[in-house]
């Protein structure tokens, strides 16, 4: 466990007043361990365990609150679809958020970043948990070395090309903010994996609230993390075609689904979406 992460983590525990042992850890991500390679950044991923999703939409609301997302836009939703004939009807739930894609194998750049006219911009440094530095370029939308796809509104021109480029509809205009470079246009809202929380060692808001514990977030580069264990148990990496959304798009998503009931084989999962609002958050009950 590196010193730095430990400190921020301790600080956050104190801040939140969750000092009591045991239960307190429930809201926290296990501290990042330095991998053998040394220079490796963490690789944050989310595993959705669909056995545990009960369609309650607390994740959606927690995210709305965390970012004060305006009406008409979402950073995460839960899709559902009624399948089969009565009395053998089924109703799978499918939580969705930005896939924080790795990008195709040729250049490791996901389509939203590739289509952003304001990328690349300045050189930035990313410090790994063990103190090594990795350099990268930021932009209006860019990929951080730990895999997060983030936005810097000060570069953003509000052109909306990233929204069009994303096959998952993970992005939308935030009608209550202006884009940094063109105040006649709106800025973009999308899932940041709660970068501001995880940098402090606190789990993303949707993970924190998920009563089914269907959202598991962690570092895939840490073999002891829960996501790594799940990835191994359910062969999530090996079978990307069956564990991620729209594999044919070759965006290499970093959201994985544990899906024993084939929710990824439904119409809702095989469709491309223009924006988060297209999911329409249909709630059946």
């Amino acid at each position, binding site marked *: 466990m590196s010193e730095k992460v430990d400190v921020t983590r301790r600080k956050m525990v104190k801040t939140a007043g969750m000092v009591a042992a045991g*239960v307190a850890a429930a809201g926290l991500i296990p501290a990042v361990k330095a991998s053998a390679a040394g220079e490796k950044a963490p690789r944050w991923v989310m595993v959705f365990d669909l056995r545990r999703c009960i*369609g309650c939409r*607390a994740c959606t*609301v927690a995210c*709305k*609150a965390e970012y004060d997302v305006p009406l008409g836009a979402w950073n995460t939703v839960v899709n559902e679809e009624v399948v089969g004939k*009565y009395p053998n009807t089924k109703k799978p739930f499918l939580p969705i958020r930005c896939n924080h894609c790795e990008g195709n194998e040729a250049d490791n750049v996901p389509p939203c970043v590739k289509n952003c006219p304001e990328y690349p911009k300045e050189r930035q440094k990313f410090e790994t948990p063990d103190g090594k530095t990795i350099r990268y370029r930021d932009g209006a939308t860019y990929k951080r070395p730990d895999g997060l796809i983030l936005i810097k509104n000060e570069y953003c021109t509000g052109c909306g090309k990233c929204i069009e480029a994303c096959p998952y509809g993970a992005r939308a205009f935030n009608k209550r903010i202006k884009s940094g470079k063109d105040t006649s246009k709106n800025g973009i809202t999308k899932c940041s994996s709660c970068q501001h929380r995880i940098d402090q060692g606190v789990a993303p808001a949707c993970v924190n609230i998920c009563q089914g514990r269907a959202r598991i977030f962690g570092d895939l580069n840490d073999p002891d993390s829960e996501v790594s264990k799940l990835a191994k148990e359910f062969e999530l990496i090996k079978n990307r075609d069956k564990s991620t959304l729209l594999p044919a798009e070759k965006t290499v998503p970093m959201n994985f689904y544990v899906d024993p009931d084939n929710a990824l084989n439904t119409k809702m999962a095989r469709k491309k979406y223009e924006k988060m609002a297209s999911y329409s958050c249909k709630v059946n009950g």
Partner: protein
Amino acid sequence: MQKITRRGLMKLGIASGAILTTGGMFKTNALAGSIKLEAGGKDFSPATGTERKMIPSACWNCVTRDAMIGFVEDGRLVKLEGQPNSIRGLGKICAKGAAGINQLYDPDRVLYPMKRAGKRGEGKWKRISWDEALTELGGRLKKLRDEGHPEKFMFHYGRMKGSSSKIVGIFLDAYGTGTKGNHTSICEGGKWTAQELTWGKHYDNWDFDNTKYILNFGSNVLSAHTNHIPTSQRLVSAMVERGVKMVTFDVRLSNTAARSTEWVPVKPGQDGAVVLAMCREIMNAGLYDKDFFKFIKATENPDATTDEKVAAIKAHLAQYTPEWAEKISGVPAAKIKSIALEFAKAKPAVVISYRGAVAHYNGNDTERAVQMLAAITGNIDNPGGRVRPAGNKWKSPKGPENKPKSKKLNLADGFKGQAAYPTHHINHQILKVIKDGKAGRPDIYMWYCYTPVYANGECQENIDILKDENLMPYNVCINAYYDESAALADLILPNPSYLEWWDWEDHVSPKQIPEYYIRQPFVKPLGESRDFKDVVCDLAERMGFPLGFKTAEEFVKVSCDTTPGIKEAGGFEYMKANGVWHDPKAKPKYFGYKKEVKADALKEEGVILDEATGVYWNWKKSTAKSEAEAKEMGYTKTKNALKGYVGQKIGDMVYEGFKPDGVNKSGYFELFSELLKIKNFPALPTYVPIPEHEKMGPKDLVLTTYKVSVQIHSRSTNCKWLTEMYHDNPAKINPISANPLGIKTGDAIKVKSQIGEIKTTAEVTEEVIPGIVAISHHLGHWEYGRYASGNKAPMAGDDDPDLKHKWWDSYGVHPNWIIPNSPDPINGQQRWMDTVVQVTKA
């Protein structure tokens, strides 16, 4: 007007100065202190990036009342999360809880006392001061009290729990009125009565942490439940981590049914037939729990042997074959048999039930049958079974010593003979009883956390009665929001949202260890809203009978500082900082009924043995005037005999048994109910057909209502984040029923019952069984602000930037317009799920 010149300014300045000095009436300065230039000077720049401040509190959006924490940034509440140190909630809250912030900052909130200005219901209001409001209300209240008619003040509440219930209760007692109404019979009161008739005090805890098998009749526990977050997350863990099987019987593929191992569709109101047939199979297979039968009452004879009891139950159940149940319920006989045997063998196993099964004509005996299924398999009060909760014991101020003897109007138990044991009252009949007038009428009708118009059936009649000034001379509404009932008030007192008030709380913990927790304000009440608990303290003071505490905060403080355990932990200061407390040494409570009663307790003065039931009881605590009278009347028929209950004689021993509550039952687990027999109902759990369903025509459908995961029954559609996700509720019909009617998805349809008709759209879906039409009951608001209904509240502002981005203009329909207010004949439960309707294209 021209530009102000320096010369103009000078004149204006001098004139203004004259006003300021002469008048000297700037009494209402907002600012105090003096300007310190040193503090301002160079560093004079507002700081930014303050840390969010964590405050522990408790939810109130639904009755689960999870402990939670909130984050306040620069005076604004920005985020709610679960309380990580709660043994109940384990750090979780639900979507509805997280959206509670929307209620605090609802732009349509009522922030000032409002007095009706036009005709009642016309929507014209005048803002008045609190002093004016309380002078008027207090004057009316005092007059009634002084005239010797405190009972003409009726207080009708939807939810009062924890310290709220205590404080307001103390006020009403000190005032002297017993004319109260609640809402339990439109919720699940019938289930509680059935439990009181079988095992005493109501409420069943479902021990998912320790169970091996779950049978569910009509509960949507994964979306909504009186103890939702604590139970549902444990249910998910049990299923995924321990592979526990769950079978759900429901008319609808609820989220719970969808996540269950198996959904078994059942016809509405026929769960009882399935349960009875299961009991029969289990008894016949010899899979019953012989040891538990010792504590069961199965015949008239309190001294019957286990063999006699088993024989009596078997004989009674003989009629309920799985084949018979299949015809009635639509559940295949083979399925009934296999599930029954699986359940009986998978000990410990838990059977759960809710409104889907009990809000019917026969709901009382459906719940009794469910209790029987749990009892004969020995899954009562055991780890992993259906368990009586461990209650907690807050100490709190008792209020004034000399309280007058309460008087009351009998308005809350329906009309004579409507229900045999309405132990949780028949509140859906209250307006009808008032209209009838024979039991008297209140001069002041006040409601709190309740919406009589919207929450009951027969909305139109509710509106007509509330509007009629001859029937209801003075309507007082306590609410933070302008809902359909507030619109018919004469006076609205602005309550804060629950995020701005104090309480202590005490809801059931699935751990079987009591948890103590408090609710504290995140911000001070907005506008002039004032916690009703503080208002009653003020009113009592004005009327000359101070309650002994001045505010809810003081009440909570004293409670925290005197309750054993919390006191030692640090009392109020500890609770303010930590929010929750439980005794770390406490052991989970099971098998309480097996505890033996000490011999001394039986020797106390007044304790006698009732031969007919085997109950030891202290007649002095009942209304009996002498021992002779008590003996002659007997335990069962003496009023308030249950208050003297000491123990149950079983063989040579006396046990604590299943202590009575609400009714004079014995200490046995009563499958055989003497009380029901007295009232000419079957003593053993019995299948009863639903009269209306017996007479249904081939095209008639049964209307079913339900809850979704993202709305509370009637009080959450002003939460923009929830209503954005759920603002339309088309009527769901199975294609097998829709096709003969020529109805397709999206068609405009009419749904007609004996009392009225609503228009809506159809959704033809495989999610519901044939023969029903399912309409959720959250929507169709015609008030409650812009997010809920599109209608702005009369006193509202525009203080929410999201108002510009609201994108929906459909608000759904409310099914209650066409559901009659009709009680279960035993317990008075509103029969939500029995309404027969005809569906046609509009």
